[in-house]
């Protein structure tokens, strides 16, 4: 089911406690607006490689501490006295991380992935549905200041030295952290894909009447024997 806006143009909104409970996950429909309270952590290719390929133990008690993994690198600095200064946080494009997701779900018990741009519905069905996980997309995608406001405290930073600021595991205490939009529910439906299909229907008409380019190029054909530039 897709969440629909009411007559005032407002979408269904929910506020969830982290770790997110099974019953809360079941209620999420694609298109629902979500805000979170509790503890979340960042993890992207640096963390995935270190845990899943190099065999390091996750330095956090997951999923007891949190079952929400944010594909994010914060705009943040560690001060000389060891305190943290978090400016903004926004997500990074998630499709690049598909190959690690099953391994990560198994190791971390994550049930909610927050990121940018989502994945395909095939990937949701293949990777997320068996793990009982949903995908939330950030909005815009640049709501760095709004999300930064939702971070109440940096609880800890792991692997800062080993992975650097952008790839380290940042653990945040968050309050009313959002908004996010449900892109994939527990069944693996995808909001992006549904919207994309509606848009695709009109594309042919858009190109109607435009003549072909003088020379084609790779991408327009798969035949490498064609003459291309």
């Amino acid at each position, binding site marked *: 089911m897709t969440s629909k806006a009411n007559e005032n143009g407002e979408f269904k909104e929910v506020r969830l406690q982290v770790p997110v409970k099974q019953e809360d996950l079941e209620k999420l429909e694609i298109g629902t607006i979500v805000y979170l309270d509790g503890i979340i952590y960042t993890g992207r290719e640096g963390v995935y490689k270190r845990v899943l390929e190099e065999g390091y133990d996750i330095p956090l008690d997951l999923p007891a501490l949190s079952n929400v993994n944010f594909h994010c690198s914060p705009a943040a600095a560690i001060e000389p006295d060891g305190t943290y200064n978090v400016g903004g946080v926004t997500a990074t494009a998630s499709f690049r991380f598909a190959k690690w997701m099953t391994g990560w779900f198994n190791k971390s018990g994550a049930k909610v992935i927050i990121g940018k741009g989502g994945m395909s519905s095939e990937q949701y069905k293949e990777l997320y549905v068996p793990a009982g996980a949903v995908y939330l997309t950030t909005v815009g995608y640049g709501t760095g200041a709004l999300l*930064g406001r939702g971070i109440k405290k940096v609880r800890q930073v792991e692997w800062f030295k080993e992975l650097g600021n952008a790839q380290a595991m940042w653990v945040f205490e968050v309050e009313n952290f959002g908004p996010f939009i449900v892109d994939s529910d527990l069944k693996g439906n995808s909001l992006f894909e549904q919207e994309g299909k509606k848009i695709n229907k009109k594309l042919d008409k858009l190109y109607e009447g435009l003549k072909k380019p003088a020379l084609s190029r790779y991408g327009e054909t798969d035949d490498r024997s064609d003459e291309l530039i």
Partner: protein
Amino acid sequence: MISNKTIQDTAYQIMGKAAIDIPQDYRKGIEFMVQKEDGLSKFVLKTMMENWDAATEDRRPMCADSGLPRYYVKIGNDAKFEGGPIGIERALREATAQATHDIPLRPNRVHPLWRTDHNNNVGINSPEIDWSFEPDVDWIDITTVHKGGLFGTDYRMLFPGDGIDGIKRFFLDTMVSFGKRGLACQPAVVGIGLGGSKDTTMVLGKQAACLRTVGEANPDPEIAKLEEELKTLGNEIGMGAQGFVGASMVADCHIEVGYTHTGGMPMSVHMFCLSSRRATARIHADGKVTYRTDPNWFTPYMRRETTGWEQ
């Protein structure tokens, strides 16, 4: 004599302004577009406007992917400054490192192979500094732009026979491919480079996207007409913010041209996003500094066609 310290302090200031405060011209463009939207695309645009307010109120970056900070420097032909061009480059690199820590910005810059990160957005060939010059004045303009680095840009060698159809086709290709799932963080200021040699095409398109304001037309009326036509075409795709169904893809379209090889018509497309971060400062000869958001980069001198220059 403009001191090196003034240059560094000024560059530091505009780094913060660019990262935090959305330029008014862009904001007005989005306020106009949101009226025509409904559904998810409208929700996204309204949330983005709330985000700009939050950024300005809290003095925090509007987007955590604080892009690849870089500079555009325009030096008056009569400007006198301490330390020479090397001094300016040093000041801009210092300002970048300091601002990255203090604002804070995300230290996005890494070595392409070893992924080495100095945590300060400074490294080999970064930040980029583009230079230009202006006759008969004694000031220095410094603009910083923080543009995202991954999506929304493409290049193609077209030929004269491809004509306007070819331009439209490549424009649509780029809008559709990067607009899906909103990877270009649209609605964007779309900059198009036409002509020059290949590298010039890329530079002109990028500068058109990042250094011209929403609502500003090319002084050539025929090019201005094409800008308007492409903007309309982009907004008729049926795609809105974040790749949802809608009509807001292009906040504005800017074209810049350069004389090119007689056999070709190279074209580039660049999309400057919902966090269109730019800020400019003018350092006057007496050391006074004034701030603005219109870079005023493409002066009549920049677009000159003649061998010499008389105004």
